[in-house]
């Protein structure tokens, strides 16, 4: 299997605060890759670096073999133009903790927006596909509702459908269930589980250890901007080697 995401010594600072202190990891194509760790450990920041919502300060980050945000010619790096960055983001779907649905559009319009605006898909075609995707996340009957008329879990599922509408090769999930009522978490995880079974490459920042254990193929525990421990989720979660991992897991499990 090839690497969908490859990080080599990735550093990221906000002002004087160094959030990522050299991350090395590899996400294989088709796998579900879980990032866990305490808040402030840099896992969300790393996720946002993958689609260049944050610029990295040092190291190299590759998606599908291509450098993120830069082009290398000889030993010189050239920043990509905004349009080139946008072009690359088409292939990477992202799901946010706070959903970030467009509130002035109905559910189906949210899903249709990017294919129409970015890919130039016809309206009728985009609608047909959007309805299919809403059906897939179990919200066919909510197509005409505005986000404010949907529950958190429903909004997050629309957000997943919206990301899928661009037919991404990689999906990023930034704590997708952290803002949800406990009761609604299950619906969203079910959709993600389906997606994993369909073979989608997924990088998931999560606090849902059950999901990581069941669905995850690899797991990384981050703390203080570094990777502390990594491996098979079942091994790491049941038999953590590192002391920091042990103390974290003892608190959340």
């Amino acid at each position: 299997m090839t690497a969908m995401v490859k990080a080599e010594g990735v550093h990221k600072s906000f002002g004087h605060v160094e959030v990522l202190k050299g991350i090395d990891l590899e996400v294989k194509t088709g796998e579900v890759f879980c990032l866990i760790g305490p808040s402030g450990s840099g896992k969300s920041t790393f996720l946002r670096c993958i689609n260049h919502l944050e610029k990295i300060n040092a190291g190299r980050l590759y998606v599908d073999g291509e450098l993120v945000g830069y082009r290398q010619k000889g030993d010189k790096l050239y920043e990509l133009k905004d349009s080139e960055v946008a072009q690359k983001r088409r292939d990477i779907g992202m799901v946010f903790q706070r959903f970030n649905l467009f509130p002035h559009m109905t559910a189906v319009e949210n899903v249709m927006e990017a294919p129409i605006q970015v890919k130039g898909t016809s309206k009728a075609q985009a609608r047909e596909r959007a309805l299919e995707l809403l059906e897939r996340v179990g919200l066919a009957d909510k197509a005409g509702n505005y986000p404010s008329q949907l529950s958190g879990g429903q909004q997050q599922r629309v957000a997943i459908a919206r990301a899928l509408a661009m037919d991404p090769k990689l999906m990023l999930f930034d704590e997708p269930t952290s803002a949800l009522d406990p009761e609604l978490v299950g619906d969203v995880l079910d959709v993600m589980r389906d997606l994993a079974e369909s073979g989608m490459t997924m990088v998931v920042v999560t606090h849902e250890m059950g999901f990581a254990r069941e669905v995850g193929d690899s797991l990384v525990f981050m703390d203080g901007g570094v990777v502390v421990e990594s491996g098979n989720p079942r091994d790491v979660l049941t038999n953590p080697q590192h002391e920091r991992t042990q103390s974290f897991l003892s608190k959340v499990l």
Partner: protein
Amino acid sequence: MTVDVNKTDGPADSTPPAGPEAIKAVPVRHPGRYVSAAIALALLGSIVYAFAQGKINWGAIPQYFFDDRIIDGVLKTLLLTVLSMVIGIVGGIILAVMRLSKNPVTSSIAWFYIWFFRGTPVLVQLFVWFNLGLVFEYINLGPIYKDYWSSFMTPLLTALLGLGLNEAAYMAEICRAGLLSVDEGQTEASHALGMSHTKTLRRIVIPQAMRVIVPPTGNEVINMLKTTSLVSAVQFADLFKQAQDIGQNAGSTVEMYFLAAAWYLILTSILSVGQYYIERYYARGSTRQLPPTPWQKVKAHVFSLSSRKGVTA
């Protein structure tokens, strides 16, 4: 979390069918309210009486109300309001985007523009535009246009430039506030989908900013309609100027001021209604249910009075 939003409001239908016995108590009396109402009515009455007794030829107002010159003035006032606002809004959006841009040169220029035009009275600006012939004797746009400044700067153009450019400074601040009010997550989500800056602005940010921008803009339109009366000073024949001229010729100056005031009041009232509907349009999605139109409110009221049962919002 409720998903069902098919909720009807209004107290009329919320009374439980067979609950505990309702409290019947003697309400608190408010004698002060009667006194203050009586005083207010007395004052109002005396003002109306004073006006009725004054030496005002009330008959002149209906006589000239639909006079050709007045109607012409009304149309010119409306034209000036619309065109100035168009200049103001377009200019305001450009200035707001300039101010928010990362380029220090454009953002400083926008800052300077806003500083200058907000800091000087619009009447002074109008006179400056009108008399700029002292600085520029000719206007020369190469092969397209060349003329003396004084014949180029017609009253209409002076009025448009003066009001429009001044308005742009105010609209810039309103637009900037609107753009900043949209959650950053919206931009991020749009970028993450691969949408460009321009598309994000046009499709995602501006439609949401409109909810913040429209109410103060409606205010600005109403303000502009009234401010256009200043252009009589630079010889533009708007409603106020026409009313003044008629008043001087017919010897009924004050009457014509009343007439002008009545017309302005009618026009601003119409604009207020329009503003309500525009606000309602941009509120879609932000409230679970759109507020009722005034007409729907009236209908609901009448219905609830007659039946006292179901209230439909």
